């Protein structure tokens, strides 16, 4: 391993035995995460994401494989050393796992109880974290009296209390409204930038991946089927599952379905075409639409567009009806594939498969 890899999972298998059935929840997974990274994990429900991240701090003992965190192979540590190591790896659980006998403040204070820190300092730190997650008013409330999202935020605050080096978050924003999600993500990003906190983050919200992750792994049936820089995975997805996710998350698929269902394709004029554009990187910088509109006297009616930046790169999806000199336009735009522009004429093919 290089000194920079804070997490190294090698050839991890996790097999569950349900009576006579066996479930291979994780199969032959290698995962290396650099210090300071924000690493997203996505995948279908039941793919093995939670099981995999639970291996990182050995809450789940793998059936096979080695777990190295911070240069220590966890399986070889004595119990006390493992506990020491775990104090640097915080976890936000999918089901929160708050202690119902402690107040919100008490829950956040918990990881600090075994640290050499005065009670006043401990309380102050916990309160400050509660402020950050917007729950300062609830310090003395017990978890049973919180809403779902409030519980989740307490779990987030608790995970941050021990100044971890690694934060494992299992859908930590799934119960939060968009605004609160955004503020939590901003908090995590800040901790990542200021303190070098490494974050491993399971999520179902592609927006979360896009907005804070640098790398992402895609899991399917216990295996990682694709991984890499977020921009790369989102712009050039390879595995069918990834393609599916990206399209679902950009709403492209839904839009094509809707448009082909509502627009009478046969009814388009001869000089009209329904087209799907996909721009990556610099392609957008130059304003293709306006450029070609002028050059070929085209009318471009955008029915759907999703143009945004992912991890610093521009990525765009657009569906439009083009009216005008198509005979010239089509070959012209085809030339720009090298710049990252892909097109597809939907009018004739009525689908997207070919492009993916």
């Amino acid at each position, binding site marked *: 391993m290089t000194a920079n890899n804070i997490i190294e999972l090698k050839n991890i298998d996790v097999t569950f035995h349900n009576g006579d059935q066996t479930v291979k929840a994780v199969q032959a997974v290698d995962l290396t995460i650099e210090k300071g990274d924000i690493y997203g994990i996505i995948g279908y429900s039941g793919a093995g994401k939670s099981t995999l991240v639970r291996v990182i*701090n050995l*809450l789940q003992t793998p059936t096979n494989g080695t777990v190295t965190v911070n240069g220590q192979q966890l399986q070889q540590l004595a119990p*006390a050393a493992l*506990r*020491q*190591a*775990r*104090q640097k*790896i*915080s*976890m936000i*659980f999918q*089901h929160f*796992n*708050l*202690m*119902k*006998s*402690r107040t919100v403040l008490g829950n956040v204070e*918990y*990881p600090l*109880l*075994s640290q050499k820190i005065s009670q006043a300092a401990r309380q102050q730190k916990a309160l400050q974290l509660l402020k950050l997650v917007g729950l300062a008013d609830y310090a003395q409330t*017990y*978890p*049973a*009296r919180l809403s779902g999202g409030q519980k989740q935020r307490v779990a987030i605050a608790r995970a941050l209390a*021990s100044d971890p080096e690694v934060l494992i978050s299992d859908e930590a924003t799934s119960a939060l409204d968009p605004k609160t999600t955004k503020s939590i993500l901003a908090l995590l990003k800040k901790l990542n930038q200021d303190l070098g906190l490494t974050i491993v983050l399971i999520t179902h919200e592609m927006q979360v991946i896009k907005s804070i992750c640098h790398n992402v792994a895609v899991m399917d049936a216990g295996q990682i089927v694709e991984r890499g820089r977020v921009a790369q995975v989102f712009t050039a997805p390879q595995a069918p599952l990834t393609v599916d996710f990206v399209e679902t998350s950009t709403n492209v698929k839904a839009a094509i379905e809707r448009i082909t269902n509502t627009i009478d394709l046969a009814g388009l004029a001869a000089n009209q075409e329904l087209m799907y554009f996909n721009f990556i990187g610099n392609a957008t910088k130059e304003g293709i639409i306006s450029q070609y509109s002028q050059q070929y006297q085209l009318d471009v009616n955008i029915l759907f567009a999703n143009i945004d930046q992912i991890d610093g790169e521009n990525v765009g999806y657009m569906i439009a009806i083009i009216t005008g000199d198509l005979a010239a336009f089509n070959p012209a735009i085809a030339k720009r594939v090298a710049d990252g522009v892909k097109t597809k004429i939907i009018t004739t093919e009525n689908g997207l498969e070919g492009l993916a």
Partner: protein
Amino acid sequence: MAALIPNVISMKSEFIQATLETLYMTFGSAIIAAVLGLALGVWLVVTQPGGILADRVTYSILDKLTNLLRSVPFIILLAVISPLTNFLVGTTVGTTASLVPLIFGIFPFYARQVQNALLDVDHGVVEAAESMGSSPSEIIFRVYLKEGLPDIIRVSIVTVISLIGLTTMAGAIGSGGLGDIAISIGYARFENDITLVATLIILILVFAVQIIGDWLAKKVEHN
């Protein structure tokens, strides 16, 4: 009054003393049995398969030991541990001497109850504590005993009431107490008013334990 409870009137001081003896036996043995029972109960929970210190051999020994102690009829227990009683309190009869068999009679029972109570502590929460690097002793004191407290209080109520019942049998070794009055004076001599009044005082004790226990359980429960 005198007509209703003719024998009781003349035994007022005996009743007061018996009540004190019962209180002494019950709470004296309860305190020590609580410590032993909690320790054993916790030990059972943490060593059982899937526990935080899972250890098949230790669990199996503790489990069998608990049942062993629970299998000995109380009267026999009185005799079997009388050397220990003599060693500890210098005598084998009397109120103080009865504490020893009472403790041994009740603590294995309490340990089982504690074990059952702690089994209901949410495993996810124990896991969360483990993930935060809590040591076994921290998990025991900060998670099991804290999260399980309402249930522990509830089983403690059941146990103390059972213990009060057990004190009524300690008359065999001269413990005195309300049970002894009820049985060897009231019952054996057909002085029903004595039995009735002694039982009523026991009832008041039982009610007090239940009410205080319920109140405590409610106070520490945050559902």
